[in-house]
């Protein structure tokens, strides 16, 4: 079973571009899209009370009702178990970079819960990827040294990294809404016929709604055809 654990940022990029239907088209018996309770709170429960984003929240809620998006219980992972693992990961992540004698709190419950669920699902032999559009979590998992460099350059102060913590986050497979959109395009699932401009439009659309993909990466994807 393949599992895609979606972080708030990736759902938001898709929702704000009216691309949530791609999840419906890409859902298969062998592919599940799962969100944690913390993410549900961020993308459904909170925005339902914000007039500007209420419609997006309802559309995401609809996907949950239809079973396109599923909660961890669907794969028999208990929320209490996720909460314990989430706390461990959050404490570790937030004790990894130190500036001016202070540990920098870089992530919160939503992101930590996605990593926690991914770890628990891998232990149960699911083939897992985390879909995360925001930059910090991806960098923490894939290139924490670069995250230290960004913190250092932006904070204008030296940042110490507790490198022994890096292993807790490494090894997670990460994709973004940009890759999902590209695969949907390649499979002809987008439903818009102008192929040449479509891939460019799709990738920049998610970028402009918060997907941390560079223009350089977008140009590389376009060359893949």
């Amino acid at each position, binding site marked *: 079973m*393949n*599992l895609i654990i979606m972080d*708030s*940022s990736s759902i*938001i*990029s898709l929702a*704000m571009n009216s691309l949530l239907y791609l999840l419906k088209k*890409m859902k298969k018996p*062998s592919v599940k899209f799962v969100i944690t309770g913390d993410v549900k709170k*961020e993308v459904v429960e909170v*925005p339902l009370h*914000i007039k*500007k*984003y209420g419609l997006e929240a309802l559309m995401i809620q609809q996907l949950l009702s239809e079973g396109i998006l599923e909660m961890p219980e669907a794969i028999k992972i208990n929320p209490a178990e996720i909460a314990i693992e989430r706390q461990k990961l959050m404490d570790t992540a937030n004790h990894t970079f130190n500036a*001016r004698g*202070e540990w*920098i*709190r*870089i*992530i*919160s*419950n*939503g*992101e930590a819960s996605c990593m926690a669920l991914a770890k628990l699902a891998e232990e149960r032999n699911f*083939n*897992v*990827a985390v879909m995360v559009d*925001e*930059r*910090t979590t991806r*960098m923490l998992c*894939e*290139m924490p040294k670069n*995250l230290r*460099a*960004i*913190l250092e350059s*932006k*904070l204008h*102060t030296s940042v110490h990294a507790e490198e022994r913590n890096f292993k807790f986050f490494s090894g997670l*497979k*990460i*994709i*973004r809404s940009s*890759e999902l959109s*590209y*695969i949907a395009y390649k499979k002809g699932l987008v439903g818009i016929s102008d192929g040449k401009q479509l891939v460019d439009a799709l990738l920049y659309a998610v*970028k*402009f*709604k*918060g*997907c*941390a*993909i*560079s*223009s*350089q*990466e977008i140009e*590389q*994807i376009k060359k893949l055809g």
Partner: protein
Amino acid sequence: MQEKENILDILLKTKQAVKEGNVVLMRELSNRTVHSASIYGDTDNIAVAVIVYMLSKIVERKKYHEYKEWPVFFQTCMNGLSIAITSLKKDDTEKFSSSLEEIRKRVGKISGNLRNYIKDVFRKAEINKASRIYEHGISMQKTAELLGISIFELAEYAGSTGIGDVNLSITKDIGERIKIAKEILA
């Protein structure tokens, strides 16, 4: 509250910059608090960053000054800054925080159209500062939580900046990432 001396210096310079209409200096001062806010996740640092940025915007927009409610509101802001400075000098952190909160509350008490304009400026100041904190390397959710804004708002704003284009942000070969996506979505 962290870095008292830094905040005190920022507030004193802000007060002077407001009097001189020096918007550029106000923006720089606002950014200085973002560094501390990112490290300490301290709400007072964040409140100062937002208020200083908000002041830079309303000082810049001369049309606001023509509203009859403007003099009272402006004076309230200046008084708020003075109280914040005095409280900080006396190490009265409670009064310091409440003076910053008072500036925000005052916005709700302005009558007429000016209230809506200033409220909007305040909201945009929060989103702008959130985007800066995210740019510093704090996650999107953590940043939204610190500023009390929605992740939707932050994602939309951050997407219009060049945050994703920083070379250090590229952490995996794009072909490799597409391969992962293809395998998982197969």
